[in-house]
């Protein structure tokens, strides 16, 4: 570290910076100049009477103030509002009547506590009404409470688990302890082994809880709060956007090497950045994790914080004697610690890499790996690592919901101590590595992928010169810049390769004898239902039952010596065949019954036998995230690059720079989108053709029982065309959204945040099970479940697309470049 101490040379450098100052009008440098007056001693003199406003901010506060950019504020406001909105949507089904609901629950629980006979009568009455409804013997009538979104069913669904836990908690815990004692005292279980130690830990943790009294009191709000997973997703997105730029400002303005040699530009600067990031991280985590409490307080209200946490259904087996308040403090602390590490990792990656995109990429890979890890099944060698996935850990309550331990080669290590140890190591690394990287002379060139000049061949350079933009029309130039840049072409090819790989796995035919026989039958019966085919099926059914009957008779004949082995073998093989085809044949019979059902046959045309497996996979395909991400990357820079390079102001004054360029950009974007859609749809279509009989396209759509809900009297091919047109429309809407936002946002980071908010978040949330987001998600168009049901999304996204195109025209025509 000695070489970084203030030396004469460094003083000289400060003087040099001071002399260069009039030419480097950079916000960052001004800030450091203000934060560290000693950097430019030659120029500035401190006035005799310095006002409070003039006084420079300490470095830490200066770093802190950098988070207060307009982009960050807007993004955080959007995500924060989304967080509140999700909490409101998830818990607000009866918010106007939450008081009545609380009263009803409390009354019923009081009845349970003080007048058990009356409670039992109420429960019995409810059960009778429910049974009557179930067996279609009458209408269900709410008698205890009847408000919008909440009735007797919901009331008993809320109350019964409370009374059940109040009665049985002690018994359940004793069962756990007894079972653990029994298992650990089993002579077959070695002392010191994982299983023994695990049981001992269970006894240690749960025995003190077995006398805990769980009151039969209403639980309001807490179950809903602790089960919410959306805040952590939004928080992770906010963290990615906010903290990835901590170093990139300095790096983009190429000032970091200058800062390195200034007095406070290295270690103090790094320390300030880390400290400011840590403070912002803590504040953000608290903001996102605690803000739903305010919403739930309105929509549901809360039961007392002093209630034992074991009273909540999800935490019956929490191994610690905690109140809900203590549990809340603990989970939020875990989330704060975890997101602190996550945010420091984002900061560090931002310091290490040159751009936000690789930072996003690495972290998205890490998060996806965690999600993938959480889905490992028990026979997977990675099953033991499930506890380390970020998705579960970030929820906070995961660690305290029940006792958890790690099995390291048959030895027990408690999950919490292990995570604390790992967390401390990670913290030390994430706090230390920025200094190690920041103090290295070549630190900011570490991950540059640019080739050294000497490695570029002369020939290639000449080629590059020959490719001149002015030789192209405006539209041609835009095409070459939007879609046909070598890097974009490469990216498209990679995405196409990934799509082919994924599609190949997705459309892979089912394996196993059942499917083999079924597809064989369908190939044989393919086409309209005819008398001959009906006879074939009936003949096969007769043959199957005959085989079973023959076998029983042959068994006796063979035993009695009335039948030769060869004949018996043949009959046995026939019986094996009957065994094999019995179930597929039943399915064929079901299909025949469906196709000959008068309700279907008289109403719809071209009903045929067909194996719809492949085409149904296409119609039920989940949202193609490869396509989504590819279009986002290709189109996000469409308008932004003109703002970023400052070329917008030149275009603004040029003859073809406004409307023609605008039109060319949109033309290039739409044509590029259509081409990419065509390629991706082509991959799917090829897979369908490869794995299915293509003649089924001429068959009636209603030949497929699963498509009955559409009620469309058309062929499979016509439906396929309609389906693909909806997907094409969805792709164009996505193009309009991404490119339109590109014209509005002017900055890549803002662009990605906006696309995340508008396109990805609803899609992700609907994928994660938040059904309410399905209708507003672009997935409704890119992967429609039913083209007849996509009308709302078509109009909605169509309007959004037109609006964004129009707004982009207005923005492009009026906006000026803001130099940074």
């Amino acid at each position, binding site marked *: 570290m000695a070489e970084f101490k203030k030396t004469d040379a460094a003083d000289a450098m400060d003087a040099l910076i001071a002399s260069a100052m009039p030419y480097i009008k950079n916000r960052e440098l001004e800030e450091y100049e203000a934060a560290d007056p000693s950097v430019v001693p030659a120029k500035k003199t401190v006035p005799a009477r310095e006002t409070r406003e003039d006084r420079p901010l300490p470095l830490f506060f200066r770093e802190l103030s950098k988070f207060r950019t307009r982009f960050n504020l807007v993004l955080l406001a959007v995500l924060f509002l989304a967080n509140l909105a999700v909490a409101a949507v998830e818990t607000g089904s009866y918010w106007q009547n939450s008081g009545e609901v609380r009263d009803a629950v409390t009354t019923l629980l009081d009845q349970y506590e003080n007048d058990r006979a009356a409670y039992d009568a109420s429960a019995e009455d409810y059960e009778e009404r429910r049974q009557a409804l179930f067996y279609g013997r009458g209408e269900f009538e709410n008698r205890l409470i009847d408000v919008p979104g909440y009735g007797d069913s919901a009331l008993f669904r809320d109350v019964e688990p409370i009374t059940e836990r109040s009665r049985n908690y002690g018994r359940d815990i004793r*069962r*756990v302890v007894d*079972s*653990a*004692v*029994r*298992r*650990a*005292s*089993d*002579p*077959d*279980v*070695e*002392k010191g*082994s*994982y*299983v*023994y130690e*695990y*049981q*001992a830990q*269970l*006894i*240690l943790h749960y*025995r003190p809880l077995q006398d805990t009294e769980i009151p039969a009191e209403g639980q309001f709000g807490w179950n809903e709060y602790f089960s919410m997973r959306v805040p952590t997703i939004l928080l992770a997105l906010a963290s990615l956007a906010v903290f990835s730029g901590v170093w990139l400002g300095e790096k983009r303005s190429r000032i970091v090497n200058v800062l390195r040699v200034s007095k406070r530009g290295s270690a103090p600067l790094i320390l300030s950045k880390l400290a400011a990031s840590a403070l912002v991280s803590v504040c953000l985590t608290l903001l996102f994790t605690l803000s739903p409490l305010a919403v739930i307080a309105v929509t549901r209200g809360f039961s007392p914080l002093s209630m034992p946490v074991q009273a909540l259904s999800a935490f019956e*087996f929490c191994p610690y004697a905690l109140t809900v308040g203590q549990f809340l403090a603990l989970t939020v602390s875990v989330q704060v610690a975890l997101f602190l590490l996550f945010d420091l990792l984002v900061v560090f990656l931002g310091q290490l890499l040159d751009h936000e995109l690789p930072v996003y990429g690495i972290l998205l890979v890490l998060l996806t790996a965690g999600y993938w890890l959480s*889905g490992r*099944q*028990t*026979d997977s060698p990675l099953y033991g690592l499930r506890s380390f996935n970020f998705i579960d850990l970030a929820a906070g309550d995961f660690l305290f919901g*029940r*006792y958890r331990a790690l*099995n390291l*080669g*048959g030895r027990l290590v408690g999950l919490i101590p292990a995570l604390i140890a790992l967390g401390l190591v990670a913290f030390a690394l994430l706090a230390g590595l920025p200094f190690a990287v920041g103090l290295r002379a070549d630190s900011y060139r570490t991950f540059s992928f640019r080739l050294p000049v000497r490695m570029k061949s002369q020939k290639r350079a000449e080629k590059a010169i020959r490719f001149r933009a002015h030789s192209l029309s405006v539209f041609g130039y835009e095409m070459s810049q939007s879609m046909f840049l070598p890097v974009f072409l490469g990216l498209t090819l990679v995405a196409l390769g990934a799509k082919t790989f994924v599609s190949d796995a997705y459309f892979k035919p089912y394996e*196993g*004898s059942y499917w*083999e*026989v079924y597809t*064989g039958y369908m190939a044989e019966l393919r086409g309209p239902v005819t008398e001959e085919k009906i006879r074939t099926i009936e003949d096969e059914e007769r*043959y199957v039952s005959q085989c079973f009957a023959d076998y*029983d008779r042959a*068994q*006796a004949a*063979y*035993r*009695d010596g009335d039948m030769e082995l060869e004949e*018996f*073998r*043949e009959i*046995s*093989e*026939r019986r*094996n*065949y009957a*065994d*094999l085809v019995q179930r597929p044949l039943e399915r064929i019979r079901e299909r025949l019954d469906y196709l000959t059902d008068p309700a279907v046959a008289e109403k719809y045309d071209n009903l045929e036998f067909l194996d719809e497996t492949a085409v149904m996979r296409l119609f039920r395909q989940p949202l193609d995230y490869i396509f989504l991400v590819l279009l986002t990357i290709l189109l996000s820079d469409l308008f932004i690059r003109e703002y970023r390079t400052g070329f917008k102001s030149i275009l603004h004054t040029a003859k073809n720079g406004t409307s023609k360029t605008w039109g060319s950009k949109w033309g290039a974007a739409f044509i590029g989108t259509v081409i990419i859609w065509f390629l991706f749809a082509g991959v799917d279509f090829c897979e369908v053709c490869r794995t299915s009989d293509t003649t089924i396209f001429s068959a009636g759509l209603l030949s497929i029982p699963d498509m009955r809900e559409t009620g469309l009297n058309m062929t499979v091919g016509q439906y396929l065309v309609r389906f693909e047109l909806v997907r094409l429309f969805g792709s164009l809407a996505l193009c309009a959204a991404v490119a339109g936002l590109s014209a509005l946002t002017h900055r890549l980071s803002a662009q990605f945040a906006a696309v995340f908010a508008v396109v990805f978040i609803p899609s992700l949330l609907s994928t994660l099970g938040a059904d309410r987001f399905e209708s507003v998600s672009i997935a409704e168009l890119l992967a429609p479940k039913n083209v007849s049901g996509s009308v709302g999304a078509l109009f909605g996204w169509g309007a959004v697309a037109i609006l964004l195109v129009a707004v982009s025209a207005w923005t492009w025509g009026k906006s000026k470049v803001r130099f940074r």
Partner: protein
Amino acid sequence: MMKRTVCLCLCAFLAVLPVCGCRYRGDARAEIENELESARAENEAKIQAAEELSEPGKTPADSEETEEIAGAEGNAGAGQDAVTPEKHGPITDWDGITSSNYTLIGDRYYYTVQALKTMPAKGGGYTTTGVHVYVYTDLAQGGMQFVCPDPLCSHDNPDVCPFTAGGQSPCFCPAEDGLFYLGQFGGNAKIVKADLNKGTTQTVYTGRTAMVGILGSENSVVYLLDFDSVTDKNTRTTQTTYHLLALDIQTDEIRFDRIVPEGSWIVEIRSGRILCSTVKELIEYDMDFENPKTVFSFEGTDRIGDWYYDENRDEFWFNVLNQDDNSGHIFRILPDRTCEQVPVPADAVYCFQLTNTKIYYTPFAPTYISDNPYSYYGTVDYTNGKIYAVDRDNPEGEPKLVYDCAGKSYLRKDYVIFGDDLFYGLVKLELCTDFATGKEFYTFSTAGDYPKVHVNLATGEEEIFRFE
């Protein structure tokens, strides 16, 4: 200076805190260690008492000596209660008897119960799924325990609990190196090896199809049965080939893969011999399926019912039954490979169980209940709910009625008796409708969750084990 002092104090406090916590935990842990040590000693005493009791000539009545031993080895007071030989009778009565009818490892009787999980369906309403879960009853201690060693596990989700079964029947096999069982996590059947000490599971063999059988284990080898088939659409025939696989439990590799002779299925593999059944006869082969020797020939539409191998006397017991004429008899193959009928006092035997001292059997007593479109013979109660016992050494002696359902429930051939403990699957009659014809009929229902009834034959107490 002040800052530094505060920092130092804070560090010291943080350092001492875990030490205090460890000390507190350490005291509690020591108490638990002592308790577990006592419980372990009790269990060991129980086992020793059982071993003492199983010595030739000993009966539960003269087990005072055993109690003294147990009392001396266990903790004061605890050992006295622990030895309960009266409750279970001679608990080693089935030692050396192997059967495909039940899985008994040590004193643990393994079976499955079904966990039913009702969840809201995506399209509205509710959907119920069932998962078969491996459980056991320790005959010395009673009760039902999950094989999964985690008391906090919900046991109803194959993604989380590795001890869920591929089917209703338990398929278990103990070996020196762990416990092998049939598990299924979607797709082809898997043979899983569990280490109940380390709490780990590992797939050691994946079958060609969704079904693989475990035939037994011997000499560090677990025998598996797998199959594949070839279908000829023109002749509408299917040739099925069965494979006998030997899985080496040390290396988890397949030692050999031999094709079972056509038309045969393996009944038992013991001491270098394979007993196979065809529709016509029982044939004994060597381990290469060479040197076939017919040991029994079936008549008419007779088929093999239950079978037991008695290692102690090297005898193979089985019954043949015929549902066409409601006939059935018990046979045994002696060490010299001769076969003889065992004359129990019943015209026809529906099912039986063999122990070292007794033969439990149920006479064929069919009571027709209703038609059943899914069963050729209709819904028939074959047992009339009765189980008799005779001495093995005097099978023609006076039979003793050991259990009678007396119309309370229906008894099928899945019952097993260990000493005074009887287990059978609980079934109820359920009224169903044939969708094809609209006709109503009765069928036996397993109540959805395949509960197991446990009856103490000495006291008549009954309890039902089911997934809770």
